């Protein structure tokens, strides 16, 4: 719990620093770039290792609620940092390579900040460094499979609609499309390869269908009353 509290405080600190730097100029001597990069590297390493090893990391075992909470906090810290540092161009490659193998196993609570992190990495990617084909492919694999899974439970009344997962997944696709060919050279052909249009249309149609059933229910209840 102490580690989680520390991470929550760190996340808040980074958020305040970011806003302060944005509006009043940098205060680098206090919080230099290399420190941010080091925190990003350590956080990412810890995020992977807690899951990978299954061994104890501090007092936290992989797969427990505590480890999920910890990894969720780590992902939120990483989200803050990718917007504030010029991280190495292979960071996204490593992240997506790992996520392509492990993302589906994570709980929704961990998946949401992770998707937000991926979106941030794509949005801040500097222009001269295009995303490699394999990384873009891994990204699409994660996003499309995530949308595919959520779509299956959309019309299932016993499941709450995973709005954050869907919107973040779609935001990643929008970010890729916005960055265009200069950063994601083969985005167009890969969107076709992974049937992005079909899955997004399907999500929209399912949502319309669910909305309609909710409206019908409300309408019927109002008649009865």
């Amino acid at each position: 719990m102490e580690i989680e509290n520390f991470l929550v405080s760190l996340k808040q600190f980074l958020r305040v620093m970011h806003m302060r730097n944005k509006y009043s100029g940098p205060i680098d001597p206090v919080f230099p770039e290399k420190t941010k990069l080091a925190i990003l590297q350590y956080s990412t390493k810890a995020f992977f290792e807690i899951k990978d090893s299954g061994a104890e990391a501090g007092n936290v075992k992989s797969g427990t609620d505590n480890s999920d909470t910890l990894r969720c906090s780590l992902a939120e810290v990483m989200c803050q940092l990718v917007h504030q540092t010029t991280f190495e161009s292979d960071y996204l490659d490593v992240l997506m390579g790992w996520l392509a193998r492990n993302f589906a196993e994570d709980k929704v609570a961990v998946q949401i900040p992770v998707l937000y992190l991926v979106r941030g990495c794509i949005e801040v990617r500097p222009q001269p460094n295009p995303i490699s084909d394999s990384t873009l492919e891994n990204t699409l694999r994660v996003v499309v499979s995530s949308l595919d899974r959520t779509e299956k439970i959309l019309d299932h009344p016993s499941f709450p609609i995973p709005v954050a997962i869907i919107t973040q997944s779609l935001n990643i696709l929008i970010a890729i499309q916005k960055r265009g060919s200069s950063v994601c050279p083969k985005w167009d052909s890969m969107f076709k390869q992974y049937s992005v249009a079909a899955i997004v249309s399907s999500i929209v149609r399912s949502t319309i269908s669910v909305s309609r059933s909710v409206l019908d229910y409300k309408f019927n209840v109002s008649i009865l009353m």
Partner: protein
Amino acid sequence: MVTCFLHICTFEIFHNGLSEESFLKVLKAFLDPEFCDEIILVSHTPYKYLLVLSHGLQLIYRMVSQEVAWK
């Protein structure tokens, strides 16, 4: 849903310089019978569904307007 979509289009026209021609083309694509009967959803749909719809429609719109990566 169409209002939601129009809002996105309006935003794009003013902020990203979408041409009127492209806008009408996209609008026409959406106003086919498959989508027309969903207009009723506009003012009654719960926010969480509208959120999903607006994101989905924005992406579809972007792909259609660029005439790439669509189908």
